[in-house]
């Protein structure tokens, strides 16, 4: 099956710092989403980004499907950004999303 790996696995930032999270996948995908899982376990959609670049406030994402990776940028991080970030890929039109290993982010005040 497809492998979806994220790096780094853990990240600690001081408030105000910037960071880049990476998602690599081992096969062609039709779609890709980024999620933030907050400390209460809720998965929140950040981006639907099968290719190209999108921005939403302090967050932006880029997917280069031909090279099988996606990046999530967080600028001017805040304590509320803490949690786990997952990328999830839809593999070859299977209609199901396969989740990556996650990046656990902690932002310190």
């Amino acid at each position: 099956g497809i492998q979806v790996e994220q790096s780094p696995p853990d990240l600690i930032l001081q408030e105000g710092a910037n960071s880049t999270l990476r998602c690599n996948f081992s096969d062609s995908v039709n779609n890709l989403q980024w999620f933030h899982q907050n400390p209460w376990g809720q998965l929140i959609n950040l981006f639907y980004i099968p290719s190209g670049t999108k921005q939403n406030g302090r967050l932006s994402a880029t997917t280069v499907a031909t090279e099988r990776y996606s990046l999530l940028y967080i600028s001017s991080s805040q304590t509320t950004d803490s949690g786990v970030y997952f990328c999830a890929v839809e593999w070859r039109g299977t209609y199901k999303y396969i989740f990556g290993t996650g990046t656990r982010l902690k932002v310190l005040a």
Partner: protein
Amino acid sequence: GAGVSQTPSNKVTEKGKYVELRCDPISGHTALYWYRQSLGQGPEFLIYFQGTGAADDSGLPNDRFFAVRPEGSVSTLKIQRTERGDSAVYLCASSPWGGSGNTIYFGEGSWLTVV
């Protein structure tokens, strides 16, 4: 409803008991998914419904797990003869239509603990 609703939010059951978890998707969404998330792991796919039918149940771990969606809206995940290893968060998601190119939206999950 405004979002995907799951009940119960928490369930503690004894080993060997039967459990039902319910999911009410976003109104009008035809596709529905069940995932399971163990502590420290990412969500793992269990089953996908398109309308009333299970289009892909390849993620169900064994025959103790079963899910239905009889009217194409609410779905129930059923677990028979629960085992301690079934303890996890069970997440439901829905999307507007089946097929590629969908954004999926998750509920808050049902936390199952088997003691």
